[in-house]
């Protein structure tokens, strides 16, 4: 622990600059487009410079010993009486590279948006939201306090809600925004409960505070020793609650349903928020409070909380990749791919590979932003067409987009040696392989790798190769330079980043966990590493090869069935229907939700009028059954859950619409019952 250096005092500027920009842009009239864009980009650029400087500072101070150097900057937010609430900012090797990544990608995407959104009437508002998002995201990263992190976390969610629903004239966008917000809020409930529980137990929410913080040894020991319901350690219970929040934000199964729908937002938003930054916040949270997750673990880093994270991550990685195989919307494929890659990161965290997860997070941020912006460029060029079946041969019209997209695709698929994705995925496979609990997650990860290669190749074939299947006569055209330059920059980053994470020079690994990196090419050739590399190259090759063969001959028109569908029709349909997860929700969770509401309602009723309640419950059961058979309702996702809640609310409120005396009878009987309760206990 070190005191803050002078430059660490600039930490607060990171969130405040974009916030100021957001405030300024909000109050400026819709006609001041140029000024709004300039303010946003300017704030981003300055934030990027500061972040880079901070990164260098961390770099310099971390050279040498095995100690991790953390600079904290704590201050008292306010006092009340004798106690006070502390907040704090933190700079350490975990968040310093994230800061650079977020500001850098954010800057590029802001520039890109100037062109992409140029025809939108609400241009200024868009930039205000972007700034707000950026401020919240940076605040989340620099927080040295779980409460501050949570505040920013919710603000990020709010900004995401506003941006998904940005095109409010589209009902689907409004619905998607609502779905995203409510789904993540369900996860956040766990986060919130875990946080206040932690506060009640530990008395502070500071991460690091000179030995008294929640991530420092004394508190962790106390939390690991405390026992709660069912013999679970307090640390485990709180970790799992916090993981609910992380899973919600990072789209882990079963909270992933919102992320694909979130693609209703403008494409730069998808790139920035739903691929590169916000969704990674869940991963970052788990990495940040990793000591808490590992509090009950031994030296092999296996604890109940971490095991849960491992399994959920592994399952999500394969599951989402499988769904991506059968999607036809260019952005949805990328969205499921994002879910899958986030699963990889969680998997890495679960088996103890914090460094591997963060490396993959950063590498993924670059190439996924690249892919999304590339997809945006394609969509833009093809006249707002998003269905890959209606594209084809775009390679010829959009060479720059094609080249950069190909780089992104290869990075994502894990093409060997020259792409960052290869090395970061390699590192994940490596740590998963060493997990003592079970070999299954490792196999799942391998399957995910192969599937990734498969669906990305399929997408490339459909979009860039073959003949044009467009229904309109208009030829695709290359995007303007302001869009292609960010693409090129991101592509360069996607290639170069890999250097820092090879086993030969595990610089990043050391950077995060402390210690110095040495160059040793010999490590590449140890038996385990070499074998793994060979295996993964084999799988990637298999995935790409299979896809290339299956999609060798593309269907002639947009309405023809997918080649895969012809070969494996049932599997394909299942995948295309997203493995029926939304339907499953409708069939199970939502009636359950309704049942909870009905139970509450029944309680209400039973007190007042048992007979009527029994009758209505039978009717309700029948209606619930008929609803299950009603497939149409299923497709409305969470909305129907809300609907059932609404209806149970209707009955609760219906009990209020009685005449005065009936209500007074309620009051009187309520009092008698309270008294009986009193006498009975």
């Amino acid at each position, binding site marked *: 622990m070190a005191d803050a250096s002078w430059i660490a005092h600039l930490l607060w500027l990171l969130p405040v600059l974009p916030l100021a920009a957001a405030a300024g842009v909000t109050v400026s009239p819709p006609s001041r487009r140029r000024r709004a864009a300039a303010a946003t980009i300017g704030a981003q650029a300055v934030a990027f410079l500061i972040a880079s400087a901070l990164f260098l500072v961390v770099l310099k101070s971390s050279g040498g010993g095995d100690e991790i150097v953390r600079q904290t900057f704590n201050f008292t*937010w*306010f*006092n*009340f*009486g004798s*106690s006070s*609430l502390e907040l704090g900012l933190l700079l350490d090797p975990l968040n310093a590279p994230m800061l650079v990544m977020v500001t850098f990608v954010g800057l590029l995407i802001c520039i890109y948006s100037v062109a992409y959104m140029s025809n939108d009437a609400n241009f200024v508002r868009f930039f205000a939201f972007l700034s707000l998002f950026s401020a919240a995201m940076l605040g989340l990263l620099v927080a040295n306090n779980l*409460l501050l992190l*949570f*505040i920013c976390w*919710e*603000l990020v969610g*709010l900004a995401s809600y506003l941006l998904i*629903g940005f095109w*409010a004239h589209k009902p689907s966008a*409004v619905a998607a925004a*609502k779905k995203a*917000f*409510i789904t993540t*809020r*369900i996860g956040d*409930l766990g986060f*919130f*409960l875990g946080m*206040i*529980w932690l*506060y*009640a*137990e530990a008395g502070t929410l500071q991460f690091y505070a000179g030995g008294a913080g929640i991530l420092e040894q004394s508190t962790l020991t106390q939390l690991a020793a405390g026992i709660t319901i069912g013999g679970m350690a307090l640390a485990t219970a709180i970790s799992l609650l916090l993981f609910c929040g992380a899973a919600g934000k990072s789209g882990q199964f079963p909270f992933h349903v919102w992320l694909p729908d979130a693609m209703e937002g403008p494409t730069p938003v998808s790139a920035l928020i739903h691929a590169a930054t916000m969704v990674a916040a869940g991963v970052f949270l788990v990495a940040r409070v990793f000591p808490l997750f590992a509090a009950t673990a031994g030296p092999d880093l296996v604890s109940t909380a971490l095991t849960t994270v491992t399994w959920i991550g592994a399952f999500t990685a394969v599951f989402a990749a499988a769904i991506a195989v059968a999607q036809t919307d260019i952005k949805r494929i990328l969205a499921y791919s994002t879910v899958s890659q986030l699963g990889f990161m969680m998997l890495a965290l679960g088996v103890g590979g914090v460094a591997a997860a963060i490396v993959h997070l950063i590498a993924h941020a670059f190439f996924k932003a690249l892919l999304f912006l590339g997809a945006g460029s394609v969509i833009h060029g093809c006249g707002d067409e998003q269905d890959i079946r209606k594209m084809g041969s775009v390679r010829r019209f959009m060479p720059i987009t094609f080249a950069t997209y190909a780089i992104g695709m290869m990075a994502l698929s894990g093409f060997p040696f020259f792409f960052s994705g290869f090395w970061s995925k390699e590192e994940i496979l490596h740590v998963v392989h060493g997990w003592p609990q079970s070999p299954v997650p490792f196999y799942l990860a391998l399957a995910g790798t192969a599937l990734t290669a498969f669906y990305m190749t399929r997408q490339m074939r459909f979009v860039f190769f073959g003949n044009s299947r467009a229904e309109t006569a208009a030829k695709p055209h290359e995007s303007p330079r302001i869009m292609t330059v960010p693409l090129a920059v991101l592509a360069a980053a996607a290639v170069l980043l890999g250097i820092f994470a090879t086993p030969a020079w595990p610089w990043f690994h050391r950077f995060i966990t402390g210690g110095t990196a040495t160059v040793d090419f010999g490590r590449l050739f140890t038996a385990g590493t070499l074998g793994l590399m060979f295996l993964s190259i084999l799988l990637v090759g298999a995935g790409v090869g299979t896809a290339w063969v299956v999609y060798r001959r593309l269907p002639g028109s947009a309405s023809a069935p997918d080649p895969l569908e012809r070969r494996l029709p049932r599997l394909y349909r299942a995948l295309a229907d997203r493995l029926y997860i939304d339907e499953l929700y409708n069939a199970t969770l939502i009636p359950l939700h309704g049942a909870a*509401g009905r139970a*509450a*309602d029944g*309680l*209400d009723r039973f*007190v007042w009028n048992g007979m009527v309640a029994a009758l209505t419950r039978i009717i309700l059961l029948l209606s619930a059954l008929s609803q299950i058979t009603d497939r149409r309702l299923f497709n409305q996702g969470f909305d129907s859950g*809300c609907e059932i*809640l*609404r*209806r*149970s*609310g*209707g009955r*609760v*409120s219906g009990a*209020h619409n009685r005449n*005065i005396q009936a*209500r*007074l009878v*309620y*009051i009187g009987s*309520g*009092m008698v019952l*309270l*008294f009986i*309760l*009193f*006498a009975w*206990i």
Partner: protein
Amino acid sequence: MNYIEFTVFLLPEIVLLVTALAVIGIDCARRGKAATGAGGTLASASLCAAGILVAALIILIMPQEGRIAGGMLVLDPLTRLFKLVLLAMTLVAVLMLMETRPVRHVGENFAVMLFAAIGMMLVVGTEELLVLFIGLELTGISLYVLVGFARSDIRSAEAALKYFLFGSVSAAFLLFGLSLIYGFSGSTELGEIGVAMQAGGMEPLLAVGLVMTLVGFGFKVAAVPFHLWAPDVYQGAPAPAAALVASASKVAGFFILAKVLLLGFAGAEGGAAWGGFQPGWVPLIGVMAALSMVVGNLAALVQNRVRRLLAYSGIGHAGFMLIALMAATPAALASVLFYVVIYGLTTLGAFGVVTVVLRAREGDRLSDFAGMSRQAPLLSFSMLIFFVSLAGLPPLAGFFGKFYLFTSAMGAQAAPGGQPGMLWLVLLALVMSAISLYYYLLVLKQIFFVEAAEGTPVIRASKTGTWTCSILAAATIVLGCYPGILLGPIRLAVGAAF
């Protein structure tokens, strides 16, 4: 008894009383000249506002502290703070009254509002059952009159009668309960009652007294199952009266409920652990809290009128606050008081916006809010702040209210000898507050995303209305970012009082 001291202690209330009488006098004098509404309204409103400000100033600059006549009148930092809060809320209600369509006898309307404020201030500033009862009745009767003030409107009349009937029945229960408590303890002073309760055991008659008293307060704070008046009254009353009922009256109700429970019933908490129930008020409050949260939030989901929605959401919020009351620690008390003030301010603001919409579109159905963001952007933004704060999203004041509320409840669970079993209630509260987000979003969706239908009247807010709502919204934001402004004094004052 020193009459001078007495008068000095009561000076803020006396100022309000004089103001109220002056307003009536001016109104009578003007009536001879067949005055039209607007001028009279402005004069009465400014006079009222001036009176309220003077009273607030007196509270601020005269640091009297102490208690006279056996706790009938108590002046300490906590009561002074809450008197200020009540005055601020009354001021907003007065400004809102200016905004509504003028009714006849507008002077009396303003005056009765001040009488209600006097009642609430006396309720807050007492630790004696007689003054408490008369104060509650003074508040109650003033509010009945206010709710029924739009006499030509059938809804107002019906709401007033319903409010009156529910209120008087609960007052009868309350008085009966108080008589039993007096019989048990031989005193009407809260401190002495607490001593007697700690000395004597729990006996059945005392239990009945406790329950009946809770009925009376349950009515005031609109907790299930004593909440049944709230939806109709919120909907039927003129908006300023409903706002006063929803905010100031609730603040006073929670304040005095907390005081009675923690001071008067100090020896009769009991316990609410699973399998470890002990007779006392804690399990009762627990049951009321759980029911209020569930019934309030579920019923709010289906409301089509914003005022009814606010009523049910208020019932849900009462449930949240009761949870922390169960914890019965000073920290929890501070969190309840903080929360109720925040709740009052935001609800007041929401009613302010509803007032404007009501005036423009003659209704408060969800569809009446459509397209509002285009016509009154500042007002819409304020509504966003209020609702998001009520839903408990950071960084607004409502979030911090919830954070402190739930943390102090959890802290009471964690503390040795504290109340176990709070975890479940907090969990239920969190689930319910997630549900509550949904219905708040329904209204916001209308405001921001839905276009107004052809031919609907344009919403135009007056300067006063816009400013009032904006200031309340700004307060919500500021109190969210710097809760210490309010929480600090509350915790200090609570620390001094308990």
